[in-house]
């Protein structure tokens, strides 16, 4: 079991460019979460899928952020027109039945 896999581990984008972050949850896990972590804001919930269906996206900035889960084996977080304030570590996590959550190692996004 390789755990939750996130790619890329580091991404640098220019202001205004698009960034797509990938997550492969643990096989069999029904819930997939996306979080954003910064020193200032801490750990922020972004969005959550259960059995591939979007359940709660209340943490997503509405205009430029979108997330999808086209199949059981991966989810993507897309940020359009990236801004410097989007710079953060984006964490993906998965869970079997809403109990223990397993995190990936994260993608460090830097917008320059």
């Amino acid at each position: 079991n390789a755990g939750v896999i996130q790619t890329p581990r580091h991404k640098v984008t220019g202001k205004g460019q698009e960034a797509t972050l990938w997550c492969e949850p643990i096989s069999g896990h029904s819930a997939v979460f996306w979080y954003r972590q910064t020193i200032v804001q801490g750990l922020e919930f972004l969005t959550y899928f259960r059995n591939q269906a979007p359940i709660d996206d209340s943490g997503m900035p509405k205009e430029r952020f979108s997330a999808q889960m086209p199949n059981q084996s991966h989810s993507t977080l897309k940020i359009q027109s990236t801004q410097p304030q989007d710079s953060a570590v984006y964490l993906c996590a998965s869970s079997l039945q809403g109990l223990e959550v397993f995190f990936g190692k994260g993608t460090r996004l830097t917008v320059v």
Partner: protein
Amino acid sequence: GDSVTQTEGLVTLTKGLPVMLNCTYQTTYSPFLFWYVQHLNEAPKLLLKSSTDNKRTEHQGFYATLHKSSSSFHLQKSSVQLSDSALYFCALSHSNYQLIWGSGTKLIIKP
């Protein structure tokens, strides 16, 4: 709505001393509480979990007891080590599988 409160943002201690990190919660559901630890440049990982009232749970020298009467799940260790320096999150499992996270406590252990 459900919430988790961690009152200390930063705790600094000398090696060998005891520590208690506070966690209180609010929920209308039967609570399932977690402590996660995040070391520098690593992902958060589970440290402890409990849904049983008044039963102490332990792992890696850390322990916590869920007290439903006071809505608390404080994390304790009797003698901290340098390697315990990390960010600690308390979390509450919500009915729809989500976790409600506290703001985190940064623990710094000095020699």
